[in-house]
């Protein structure tokens, strides 16, 4: 599998675990029925479906992504859901959107603006604000924390402290560019009434197959290639607890419990 395919696979497999938090965040935005919005960095289109559901049959969602492979998949997902009239997709760059000023009632960006290492967050947020009408809202949403190894806080801290463990949270960039500092970008972009919200997801034993598979994928996404950075002792413990083929795989523990958070920052375009 190439990188795009394996990323797509991870998104598919992890969605049963993450979808309730995404739904809660979209609900909290209280999108107006019949409104028209932008999903910037829409990936394989799962959230565009939930956003389209939130704005109802008269509303419309425009999904934009830089990957044509994701968009081809997203088109299929939307056609299967019978929503092709309510969701359209464009290939494009979030930092140079192909839309005029004041086009949308709202903009949503998940795991993209402020999260993707290749995208400068300040200008991307300004670009989202540009295409939203005065009084409309801009929201950025992304994974922000997790506790996945109950009973092993030291091992989990060590895994998170590796370069591959910190990578999703943009190691090496200025503190101001970190996703959790998004309130500053909203202020600098001139957005009003900015707010931060936290959404919690969890899982506990006995795990269904779907949730177990989602957590296996999550371990791989959270700590990719971590082993080379661990001490011998940590590596042995990691293999014992986090390898699906290990007889002591932590997801099969009868008392397994985990939780994670997503954070959403949102603000209104000056009216």
């Amino acid at each position, binding site marked *: 599998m190439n990188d795009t395919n394996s990323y797509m696979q991870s998104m598919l497999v992890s969605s049963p675990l993450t979808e309730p938090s995404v739904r809660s965040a979209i609900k909290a935005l209280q999108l107006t029925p019949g409104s028209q919005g932008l999903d910037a960095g829409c990936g394989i289109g799962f959230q565009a479906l939930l956003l389209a559901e939130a704005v109802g049959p008269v509303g419309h969602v*425009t999904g934009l992504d*830089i990957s*044509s492979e994701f*968009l*081809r998949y997203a*088109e299929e997902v939307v056609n299967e859901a019978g929503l*092709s*009239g309510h969701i*359209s*997709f*464009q*290939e*494009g*760059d979030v930092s*140079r*959107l*192909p*839309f*005029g*000023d004041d*086009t949308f009632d709202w903009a949503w960006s998940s795991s993209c603006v402020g999260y993707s290492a290749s995208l400068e967050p300040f200008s991307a947020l300004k670009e989202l604000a540009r295409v939203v009408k005065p009084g409309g809202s801009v929201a950025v949403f992304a994974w922000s924390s997790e506790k996945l190894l109950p009973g092993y806080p030291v091992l989990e801290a060590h895994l998170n402290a590796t370069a591959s463990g910190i990578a999703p949270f943009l190691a090496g960039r200025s503190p101001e560019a970190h996703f959790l500092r998004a309130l500053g970008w909203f202020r600098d972009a001139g957005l009003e009434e900015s707010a931060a919200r936290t959404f919690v997801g969890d899982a506990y034993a006995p795990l269904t197959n779907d949730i177990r598979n989602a957590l296996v994928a999550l371990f791989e996404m959270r700590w990719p290639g971590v082993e080379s950075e661990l001490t011998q002792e940590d590596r042995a413990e990691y293999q014992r607890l986090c390898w699906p083929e290990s007889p002591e795989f932590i997801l099969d523990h009868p008392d397994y419990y985990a939780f994670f958070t997503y954070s959403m920052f949102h603000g209104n375009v000056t009216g």
Partner: protein
Amino acid sequence: MDILVCPVCKGELELTVEEENEKEIVTGSLYCAKCDVRYPIEETIPNLLPPE
């Protein structure tokens, strides 16, 4: 489709349809006269990535 503009100059685009079905345009292009850039539409998805 009608909300799309040129990602570089934000100017209007001129649509050329090569193939369409009852629902949408399958193949075609969107042309920005000001930048002299043609953005392709393939398998119903317009590609508005700015030229590098």
